[in-house]
């Protein structure tokens, strides 16, 4: 009960919606891929990371493999990986384009992905080549429902 109260307070402070299904907090202005990456588009550039749902299901991230700046990415294609609990999991790009920045902090602090998946744990920034592709992604409501269905599935 106390943690729910904290969650709603934190949510209104951060101006995001806390969906009280499991503990995944889904930030509202982002878009989501069904492989649990998020993308925040600002003008021509997109910031990409993995969601709270993803980091929770991965466990403590101990290593992040980042692409080189300048690498091309394709919607749905893999661009890097994270390691947690002796498992490397690939990360897929929700958009196509060119990598313009990577979060170097993650090399020394991979745990940022767990602690702050939607903010300080961002992974890459991409110059978007096809804004139309965003239509293929889910909004916050759809994504929250998607997570619920996935987690109910076993």
């Amino acid at each position, binding site marked *: 009960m106390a943690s729910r109260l904290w969650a709603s307070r934190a949510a209104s402070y951060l101006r995001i919606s806390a969906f009280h299904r499991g503990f995944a907090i889904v930030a509202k202005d982002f878009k989501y891929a069904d492989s649990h990456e998020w993308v925040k588009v600002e003008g021509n550039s997109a910031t990409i990371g993995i969601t709270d749902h993803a980091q929770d299901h991965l466990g403590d991230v101990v290593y992040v493999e980042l692409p080189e700046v300048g690498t091309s990415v394709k919607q749905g294609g893999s661009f890097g990986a994270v390691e*947690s*609990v002796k498992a490397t999991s690939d990360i897929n790009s929700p958009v196509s384009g060119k990598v313009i920045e990577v979060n170097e902090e993650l090399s020394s602090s991979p745990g940022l992905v767990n602690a702050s998946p939607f903010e300080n744990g961002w992974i890459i920034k991409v110059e978007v080549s096809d804004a139309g592709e965003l239509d293929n992604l889910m909004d916050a409501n759809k994504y929250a429902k998607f997570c619920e269905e996935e987690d109910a599935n076993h």
Partner: protein
Amino acid sequence: MRVIRHLEVWKMGTVNYLDALKLQEKLVADRKAQMIPDTLLSLQHPPTFTLGKRRTDHNLLIPESELINMGAQLHYTQRGGDITYHGPHQAIFYPIVSLRDVGIGARAYVEKLELTMIELAALYGVQACGGRKGETGVWVGQRKIGAIGVRIQSGITSHGLAFNIDPDMSYYKHIVPCGISDKEITSLRRESNSELPDDEVIHEQLVSCFARQFGFSITSLDKHDV
């Protein structure tokens, strides 16, 4: 309603590491394309040392040339985890499974791999437990009996687990196993007071434990000639 999922188990005998790796790559692609069901490769390797994606070769204590002279191989892979040894009398499982279909993530998957080995150890009177934070694997006290190293691509698993039945422990001298310097490696032979049956029997039991953990119904195929 509990959905029964189907698992195809390939019983492969001793397989060269690179051959097994190539096969897994093909099966991962096939599984992703939904051309095959969830599949489990059950096998052993000849003496082989492997490294994970982080390439922690500072944990290899001898030069590669010496390794080759003693008849072992060294391979760099994309799996998680640190350096480890594989060899005869160590049961290897490479599950090629769609985690999305099973409905779990990496952490839960690895926990089930741990439980599979823990259950097997219990059959022989050995009380083992899973790793605590940062020490994924299966432990008997402070001694490691089972190792895990997994790769997940588009939700499809490859690599998997290695369970020590009765391997030649002297090979472990040449590495800092799993990057952990202050803990020993052990085996079922060392920990159990029971008489151990043939490896084949133990592999079958391990398959049953795996199937139970994941809710699979299994079909076993003899794939010694693949």
